[in-house]
């Protein structure tokens, strides 16, 4: 057992990045191994977090409101906490820790990053020497692996940060490596995709920044003082500490600024990341252009940051406003599900089909979150985890076929089941999990979401269920077009099946998909209690109504 485990998980990849940058060029064959090693360490530590996390220590809403201003992390259900003062002048702290929701995301992030590292290895010579192959990285390896490791640090940081400022810094820091990873190693329209990704996300995050600054200045302690990590009182009685902001702060509203406005600012910032209709257009572009490993991270982890942020910030800090926006969230979730599925059906490009299916699946998360029932919330977070694993598999599979065929046109395939049986088996598993086949993990989370959401948003849920049918339609149609029927081209008969490295990236995910399909309790136990408290908090605040005037 290691102390400061979250800090190590967050910054160990950064050490790896520094090593890669510092090493002379003649070690360039070692870069990928260093990167994978640096990503393996957080994965091992994630096991410690997963095993050592005590789900019974969840926050209890009533105890929180009565708690004394001195911050006892355990009372908030936080574990593995590291807490120190960072910038004293503005009461900014280095405060990391996990509760149930972030623990599951931390595990997911470590797992997907590691698999993305493995997936970056070169499989075979690329066709276009300048752009590299979609799966393997051959050009400028130093930069690629250093950026990948920085990205891992940024992602992990977002999930563990408990100081609002720290959260924002990690949120932004993660953008940069992503921008370069898409922009340098991406496909033909990489520049457009990279800039679009960056501008969209930054637009959302600057809105968030305004809200953060407002909360800092106009949140005052309900009683006593905000205390810093070392026990001293904050200067000016302002704080970025998320626990204080959520549970011990009352806000003063000036002119047109209200809790609803702040809620919307945060929500737009996160919705762009999810991505929620109508802010979703960056996602297909980014996915289509990004190299395979980066698509895996993008879909597997980055999209979850949006919904995670809503659960971490919008819900506890503005519970009454969350209740106020519940129907809108559910409606957007419904639009995402149905619209994403229709778009997926219309795609010719294999990768953009998977991208649109992501949009559809993230809609389930929104719908479940907006239900404020135990089933719905559990289903939403479980769906975040499951979507991370399933979509990661789907992008790996698309990358594998692109490596062989050098195109992604769905119509251009056919009959691959004959030549690539292992590939077809993994694809079947991933795609059926995506459509929600019982016995695979996607089914459990979707059913939980519908069970929960039906109690709160009856009509919207009924429309959303059609998304499952549409999902089945595009998945089955795709399988039909790609794997069944006669071979369309003679040369496709000579494709080699998956090699050991590809199997190594897919197999762990496949095991998780199957295990969670039968027994989802390991993940559900992790977060169930915490989500229950969060739900109770929102419901209680919603019953009391949106506070109109501050103080």
């Amino acid at each position, binding site marked *: 057992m290691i102390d400061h485990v979250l800090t190590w998980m967050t910054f160990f990849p950064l050490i790896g990045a520094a090593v890669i940058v510092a090493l002379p060029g003649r070690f360039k064959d070692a870069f990928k191994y260093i990167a994978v090693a640096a990503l393996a360490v957080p994965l091992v530590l994630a096991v410690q977090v997963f095993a050592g996390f005590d789900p019974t220590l969840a926050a209890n809403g009533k105890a929180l409101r009565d708690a004394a201003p001195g911050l006892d992390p355990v009372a908030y259900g936080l574990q593995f906490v590291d807490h120190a003062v*960072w*910038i*004293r*002048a*503005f009461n900014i702290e280095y405060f990391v820790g996990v509760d149930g929701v972030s623990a599951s995301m931390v595990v997911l992030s470590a797992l997907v990053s590691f698999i993305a590292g493995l997936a970056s290895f070169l499989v075979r010579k690329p066709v276009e020497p*300048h752009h590299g192959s979609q799966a393997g990285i051959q050009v*400028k390896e130093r*930069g690629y692996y250093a950026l990948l490791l920085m990205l891992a640090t940024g992602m992990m940081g977002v999930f563990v940060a408990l100081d609002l400022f720290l959260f*924002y*810094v990690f949120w*932004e*820091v993660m*953008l*940069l490596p992503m*921008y*370069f990873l898409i*922009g*340098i190693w991406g496909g033909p329209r*990489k*520049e457009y995709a*990279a*800039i679009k990704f*960056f*501008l969209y996300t*930054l*637009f959302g995050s*600057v*809105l968030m*920044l*305004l809200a953060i*600054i*407002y909360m*800092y*200045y*106009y949140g005052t302690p309900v009683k006593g003082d905000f205390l810093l990590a070392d026990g001293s009182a904050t*200067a*000016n*009685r302002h704080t970025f500490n998320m626990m204080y902001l959520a549970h011990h702060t009352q806000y003063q509203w*000036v*002119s047109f*600024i209200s809790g609803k406005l702040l809620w919307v600012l945060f929500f737009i910032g996160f919705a762009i990341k999810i991505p929620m209709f109508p802010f979703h257009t960056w996602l297909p572009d980014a996915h289509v252009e990004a190299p395979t490993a980066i698509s895996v991270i993008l879909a597997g982890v980055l999209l979850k940051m949006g919904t995670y942020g809503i659960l971490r910030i919008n819900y506890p800090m503005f519970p009454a406003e969350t209740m106020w926006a519940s129907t809108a969230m559910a409606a957007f979730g419904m639009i995402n599900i149905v619209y994403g599925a229709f778009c997926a059906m219309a795609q010719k490009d294999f990768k953009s089909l998977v991208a649109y299916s992501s949009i559809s699946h993230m809609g389930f998360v929104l719908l479940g979150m907006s239900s404020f029932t135990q089933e719905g919330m559990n289903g939403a977070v479980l769906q975040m985890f499951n979507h991370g694993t399933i979509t990661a598999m789907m992008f790996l599979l698309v990358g594998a076929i692109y490596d062989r065929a050098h195109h992604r046109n769905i119509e251009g395939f056919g009959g691959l089941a004959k030549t690539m049986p292992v590939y077809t088996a993994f694809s079947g598993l991933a795609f059926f999990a995506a459509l929600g086949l019982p016995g695979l993990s996607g089914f459990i989370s979707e059913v939980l979401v519908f069970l929960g959401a039906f109690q709160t948003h009856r009509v919207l849920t009924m429309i959303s269920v059609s998304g499952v049918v549409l999902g089945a339609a595009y998945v089955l149609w795709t399988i039909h077009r790609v794997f069944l029927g006669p071979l369309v081209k003679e040369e496709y008969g000579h494709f080699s099946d998956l090699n050991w490295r590809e199997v190594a990236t897919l197999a762990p995910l496949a095991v998780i998909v199957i295990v969670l399909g039968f027994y989802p309790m390991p993940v559900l136990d992790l977060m169930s209690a915490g989500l229950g408290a969060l739900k109770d908090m929102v419901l209680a605040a919603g019953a009391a109504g949106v506070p109109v005037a501050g103080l």
Partner: protein
Amino acid sequence: MNDLLLCAPILVAAGTGILVMALDLLSGRDDPRKGFLGVVTAAGLAIAAVLAVTLWPGAPAFEMSFLKGVLIVDGFVAFFSALVLATGAAAALLAVDHLPEQGIEPGAFQTLLAFSATGALAFVAAADLVTMFLGLEVMSLAVYALAASKRSSGFATEAGLKYFVLGGLASAFLLFGVAFLYGATGSLDLAGIAAGLAGGASSAGADRVLPQVALVLLLVAMGFKVAAVPFHFWTPDVYEGAPTPVTAYMAGAVKAAGFAVLSRLILTVYQAPSWGGLPLSPADALLGLAVLTMVVGNVLGVVQDDVKRILAYSSIAHAGYLLLGVWATDPATRALNDGVPFYLLAYVAATVGAFGVVSLLGARGEEDMRLPRLAGLSKRHPVLAAVLLVCVLSLAGIPPFGGFMGKFNLFKAVLAADPASNVTWVVVAVLNSLVALYYYLRILLYAYFREPEVVSGDDVAAAGHAPAIRSAPAWAAIGVAALASLYLGILPGRMMAASGSAASAAVVRPDLSAALAAPAALAPGKSSPAPAPASPTVSRRAAVRDAGRDAARDATRNDRDAARNDRDAAHSRSAAPGTRPPRPPRPSRFAAPPAGGGSGR
């Protein structure tokens, strides 16, 4: 003795210029070792900077009477002087190997640079408007010559001439404004003018024409110096045409000095928040300039194709954010927004680093810096590309770099000053920084994503394959700039504290000069601690807010009135002891002739 010691930074800077001039004469005409002149300049300016930050914060006032009303030294002046001097040192280092490549004579260049920094010190530290004007002229004249120092280039000559003609016009505006202020108040020192204007503003029938005209003239002059729209037209051309080390100096030091004086002058003379009750208040004027500057700077930056021009428009846009910071004073404390000095620091570090990289790329007289020349930079010069990356992202305001902390800090302070009315402008600023991101990303796009076009023979240099200048001093300068950008982004605590204390000293309080004139008269009738608060402004601000904003504002105003009355009383006592009663509390001094008012001066 004390006075000499306090003047040491200025003397060292001036001495550096003289020393470099002498060394240049002593060394041969074509001495290949002339590069050391730049190192000497940088060392001298760096020593002056260290002296400034050690001697000036919390320094006692000057003892000798002839310096007392001429220079002010305090934390504010120390902060900005150090910034100016450090930028000057960086420019000197950048120039060491840049000048021979461009065929510029180093002796005169480095001498002028040192003298310009000296002038900037006097400009920043001036206590009265004449010193301020002299400082401005010394600083600017040297920069005019520096901008045109590459005599073989038509661009550089054009840049120098343009800067000179427009700069001369701006100086004239400043002088004209000074004259109007003198006419309105009969005083040339900042505190005296402030007291005079504040007195006149509160009386009903006061003449508002003189101060109003003076305000406009001063803003035009200072707007020119800091490159605010609509006084920015020279900026892209001059920044593009001037040798790049000079551009770095102009974008860094001249702008920093300009903002130091702009904020001190406007905030002191027009006494935020009452701002003198003018038809066009300084607040409105500053806000208008700020919004116009950032919008125009950013929008025009988007369509540029030359790195130096992009950075020039970026510097215009940053002037806009800074003007917003100067505008947004807390109604209660009327101190300078504590985000402004830190923002300038982060901006200067990043902008000097970025221009530094550009100056290293301009080998062999090649000063054409269109974007395609950056193509493939990450492959050819990975370290230069990395420095450019850090500096450009810092300018764009992306964490974990200094520019982000600066923006965060500035917007935070602007919002805190008065959230209800300021939030609109912060949103405008934030959206602007999004627009800016586009052109910053374009620079990086060329440096990192684009491959250089394959060409052969004579076109090699034109296509961007020209080797970068090998220069240890310049590498040191840009290295420090990049590291500073990182340091300010990751561990900003110390510099934020320094920024806060510098900002709290920005306004020269009229009560301070009253206290100097008659310490005894200040004691009675004081309800709250008046002059320059020693505690960080924020805590005072919060305390004041808790007490109720309006009450605090009234208290401050009463305070100021009391101080002014004390001062008037002291003044008349010294003029004619025992013969005259103290003046009525609210004298109308706008219309009063300079020596009039019956005080018998």
